[in-house]
C-alpha cells in the first residue's frame, strides 16, 4: 500500500531490538545494584586489571594488582590481608537494624548521647553505654558503666572482651555484630 512502509523484517528486528535494549537496561540497573550490595564480582575484579594494563607490554604477567574497589562503602582502613579483621559493624536487631558502620582505628562509641558514633534511641541504653576499640589487631568491647549492661554472647561485659567475627553484642534491644 504505502511505498514508504518499511518491510516486515525491519519492523520485526526493530521490535526485538527494542525489547533487547529494554532488558539490557534492566540488567545494567540490576548490575549497579549488585555492585552496590556486594562489590565487584570475582570475574569483574579479574577483568579490570587486565583492562588497566592492556597497553603495557605483554610478557611476564605482572604482579596481581588489586583493582580499585568499586564498593561505595569506604574501603577498609586496614589492608584486608588478614581475613579475620572485621571492617564494619552491622546492626542486626533493634530499631536501627540494617545500619552498617565502617570500623576505623578510632573505635566506635555507642549510646544515647548524640555525639556517639552509633546513636541508639533505646530506653534501655545509657548515654555513653559501650565502646568498641581495636587493640593489637583485635576488636574489644568495653562497657562504659552502663545501667543495663552490655552482653557478648549472653555474657555480661564487665572488663574489655575481644569480640569474634559475627558474635552478637547486645545493648538494650539492639544487637550488633562485627563483619568482614
Amino acid at each position, binding site marked *: 500500500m504505502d511505498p514508504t512502509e518499511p518491510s516486515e523484517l525491519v519492523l520485526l528486528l526493530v521490535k526485538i531490538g527494542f525489547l533487547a*535494549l529494554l532488558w539490557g537496561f534492566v540488567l545494567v*540497573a540490576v548490575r549497579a545494584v549488585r555492585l552496590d550490595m556486594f562489590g565487584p564480582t570475582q570475574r569483574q575484579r579479574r577483568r579490570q586489571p587486565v583492562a588497566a594494563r592492556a597497553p603495557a607490554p605483554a610478557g611476564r604477567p605482572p604482579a596481581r594488582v588489586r583493582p580499585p574497589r568499586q564498593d561505595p562503602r569506604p574501603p577498609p582502613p586496614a589492608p584486608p590481608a588478614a581475613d579475620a579483621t572485621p571492617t564494619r559493624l552491622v546492626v542486626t536487631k533493634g530499631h536501627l537494624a540494617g545500619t552498617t558502620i565502617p570500623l576505623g582505628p578510632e573505635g566506635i562509641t555507642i549510646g544515647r548521647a548524640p555525639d556517639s558514633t552509633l546513636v541508639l534511641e533505646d530506653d534501655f541504653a545509657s548515654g555513653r553505654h559501650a565502646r568498641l576499640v581495636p587493640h593489637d589487631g583485635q576488636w574489644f568491647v568495653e562497657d562504659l558503666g552502663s545501667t543495663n549492661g552490655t552482653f557478648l554472647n549472653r555474657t555480661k561485659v564487665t572488663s574489655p572482651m575481644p569480640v569474634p567475627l559475627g558474635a552478637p553484642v547486645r545493648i538494650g534491644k539492639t544487637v550488633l555484630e562485627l563483619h568482614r
Partner: protein
Amino acid sequence: MTLPPLRRPRSADLTATFAGFPLPSGLELPPYRRRELFLLGYAGILATAALAALTLARDGTIGFQVFTYGLGFFSLWALAHLAVRRFAPAADPVLLPVVAALNGIGLVMIYRLDLAKADAARRAGREVPTGAAQTQLVWTLLAVVVFILVLAVVRDHRSLARYAYTAGLVGLVFLVLPIAPGIGATINGARLWLQVGPFSFQPSEVSKIILMIFFAAYLVNKRDVLSVASRSFLGMKIPRARDLGPVLVAWAASLGVLVVQKDLGSSLLFFGMFLVILYVATQQASWVAIGLALFMLGAVVAHSLFGHVQIRVDGWLHAFDGENPSNTSYQLVQGLYGFAAGGITGTGIGQGSPQRVPFANTDFIMASLGEELGLTGVMAILLLYALVAARGIRAALGAKDPFGKLLATGLSATLALQVFVQVGGVMRLIPLTGLTLPFVSYGGSSIVANAAIIALLLRISDAARRLEEPVPDAPLFDPSAVSESPTQVVKTT
C-alpha cells in the same frame, strides 16, 4: 588488660579524630554519580529508541527530530542528575535513571496514542485534538523542577519530623479540598480535582506524601507504646484505644473523604499504606490482622452501600458475562484483548491498536504497553518498578534514624502498592480502580508527586550512605583561657 584511654568522640580536635578515618564516601567524588550518569544515558537511549521505533513504524523513516527529542529528554533528567550531584552526592545511583526510563517509555506511549487519536479524528473529518504528550512533557519538566526543589529545600529529612501534626492537618485539608465548592471539579465521576483555570490538579497525590510524613513521625514517637502496652487476646496483642486514636482518626478521615469523593483506587492505596507503615513500625502481626479485618468490613460495607463499587466488582467478576463486555466492563475487556493481541513479544511500538481502550493513556497505559511490547516488555517494566521499590527499602535499611527508616519504607511501599493496585486492576486480578501508573501514565499531579517521593528517597539514602558530617562541639572548658579575660555579660537564650 588496658585499652587505650577513652577519648571524647568528635572533640574540638577534629583533624586528629578524623585523620585516620576513611574518607566519608559522600565527600570524595563517589562512583555512584558516574554510574548514575551512565544509567541515565542508557535511559535516554532507550527513550530515543522507542521514539525512533514509533516513527519508523508510522512514517517509514526516522527523522532527525527524533534525536532532538531524545537529547531534550536526556538533558531534562540530566538537570535532576546535576541536582543530585550537588545536594545528595552519596545518594542511590539506580533510582533516578530507572524513573527516567519509565518516564521516557510513558512519554513515547502517550505520544503514540496521541497520533492514533489524531489519525482517527482526521479520518472522521473532525478537528485534531491537542496532544497529551506535549502537556505531559510540560508536567515532566515541572516534576524535575519539584524534584530539584525538594532535594534543595529538605537538606535533612529529620527536619520533616518536626512538622508531624502540621503535616497531618495539611494532608487532610488537601484531601478535603476538592469537595470545596468553586475550586473542586468532578472529572470522570470522581471529585478529586482542583480546577484553577485550565489547570487541574489532584491534591490527594500530594497528601499521600504529607500524610506519610505525619504517620512516620507519629509512629516513631509512639511505637514502643503501641507494641508494648497492649493486652493479649487470642494470642495477639490488642493495643489500647488511646494509643490508636490519632492513627484511626486520620485513617477514617482519609477513607471517609475518599469514599465521598468516590475514588476507589486512592482509598485502597491509603488503606494499604497505613497498614504497611503501622506493621513496620510496631513489628506486630496483630496490626496486619486488624487491618485486614477492617479492610474486609470496609469492602463489604462499601459494596452494599455504593453503586459505583458494585459496578466495579461486577465488571471484575463477570467481565465476559452477558451484556458486560459491551457495557460496564468494556474498558477492562478491551484492555485484556490488548494484552492478548500483544502476546509474548508484542506487536511492536506503533503497530498495535491500543487506542481502542478508553483512557488508554492514563489508567490503561499498561494495556497499551502490553499490546505493543508484549509480555517481555511488561515484565521488564514491572521489574523496573520492583527495582525502585527495592532501592527505596534499601535506603530505609541503611537509614540511621528511625524516622528516615519509616518514611523511606512507607514511601516505597506506597509506590509499590500503587503499581500493584493499578496493574492488578488492568490485568483483572483485583477490581478495577482508577489510579495512575507512576511516571508512565498521563497525569500531571501524579508525576509531580512521585518525583517528590523519589527526591525524598534519595535524600534518605544520601543520609544513610554518608558518614555523618562532624558537628564541631564547643571546645572543652579551659580555665587558663578565661582567667585573663574581663568579666562579660553572657546572654542565655
